[in-house]
């Protein structure tokens, strides 16, 4: 697939030249259905669109959405902690051997990470092999989503210096505004504390035609390039424009909080 230019904000290797950068271990954490898969999927497609290879690893066997979108994804054989731990080791071996970034979906992740942390400190391991760990902490407006994120951060299961707090607009109830829905979270003192400590907060905008894309087996960049999905359909120009604007908006979010060089 040809590289697709999507936004006025250039990202990474300009003029189609892939940028050589340290591999990134991007780990999605947070409760299920909080937009982590969408963000990881975007980062995977973004890296590939810019000419960087990336390993896709879906450890959430109960909702293996990422593996559904990327059929070659690595998956643990079962969701038993022992199997998932062995599988994480296999993922890390592949990262170390290939020097490629990893997009890792661990679902809720706390149980496995707490167990795995006894065998191998992920952040230290990343430093050892020259990789950069990145935590993607996803939440909707439900205060318990943030509580879950907070408990993960405080427990220190996986607390790299690079963390992004992702507020997912898609989860805002139809009868509420995003401002009203997220206000209880963004005005909390402990939310401000996380930001003060270095976490970068971004707003993940909703994409109205997301289901349309998914059901037609189209990636974001393939859709705007006019390619055919697995259904054989080409995205219509209206939805193509929506996807293009969504990508541009998300790129701007990432650029404005200064995390472009954190991404896979």
């Amino acid at each position, binding site marked *: 697939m040809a590289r697709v230019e999507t936004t006025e904000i250039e990202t990474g290797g300009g003029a189609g030249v892939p940028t050589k950068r340290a591999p990134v271990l991007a780990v999605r954490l947070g409760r299920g259905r909080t937009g982590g898969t969408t963000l990881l999927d975007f980062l995977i497609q973004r890296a590939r669109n810019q000419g960087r290879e990336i390993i896709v690893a879906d450890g959430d066997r109960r909702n293996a959405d990422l593996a559904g979108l990327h059929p070659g994804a690595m998956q643990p054989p079962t969701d038993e902690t022992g199997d998932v731990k062995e599988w994480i*080791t296999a993922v890390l071996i592949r990262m170390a051997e290939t020097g490629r970034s990893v997009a890792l979906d661990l679902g809720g992740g706390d149980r496995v990470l707490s167990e795995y942390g*006894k065998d191998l400190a992920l952040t230290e391991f990343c430093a050892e092999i020259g990789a950069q760990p990145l935590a993607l902490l996803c939440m909707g407006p439900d205060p318990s989503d943030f509580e879950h994120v907070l408990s993960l951060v405080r427990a220190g299961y996986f607390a790299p210096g690079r963390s992004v707090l992702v507020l997912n*607009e898609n989860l805002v109830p139809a009868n509420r505004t995003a401002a009203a829905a997220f206000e209880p979270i963004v005005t909390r003192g402990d939310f401000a504390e996380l930001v003060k400590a270095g976490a970068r907060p971004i707003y993940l*905008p909703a994409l109205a035609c997301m289901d349309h894309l998914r059901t037609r087996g189209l990636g974001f960049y393939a859709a705007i390039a006019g390619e055919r999905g697995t259904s054989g359909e080409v995205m219509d120009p209206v939805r193509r424009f929506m996807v293009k604007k969504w990508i541009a908006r998300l790129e701007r979010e990432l650029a404005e909080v200064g995390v472009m060089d954190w991404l896979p």
Partner: protein
Amino acid sequence: MAADDLTQLITANRAKGGRHSPVYCWMRTRHDALAAAIEADGASWPTIASMLVKAGLADGTGKPPTPERARKCWHQVRKDVAAARANAEEKRKLHVSIPIAAAALLPSPMPREPWRPVDRPPDVSPSDQPAADGGEDLLARLRRKINERSGRT
């Protein structure tokens, strides 16, 4: 820690537990991919055994795996994975959700051995530095974005 060390870590962990051979662990970790490959192309056990030998993996007796031992090990892995999946499915069916109100009363799980900070400072880029204003700009930006999307501008 290099990849070789990680492989040794698996081997060492297994040696401690002593339950499964490195070949078994290797096959179980890659169960889905291996099953798909065997289903698509059939199983050539001499080829698979040769690949395992090249990877330096040993069977339960510590020897390089023969085709027959590799086949038997795969049979065991398939059986165990099927049983584990059936067990997980059974647990899922029996799982009773904790009501939200009750869950809110439960304390956050704490690790018995929290991770320690890294001994050496990681490589940092300018974007790794915490915001000089204590993140006020980042918070103000976030609120502005949310307001924009809510039509409050």
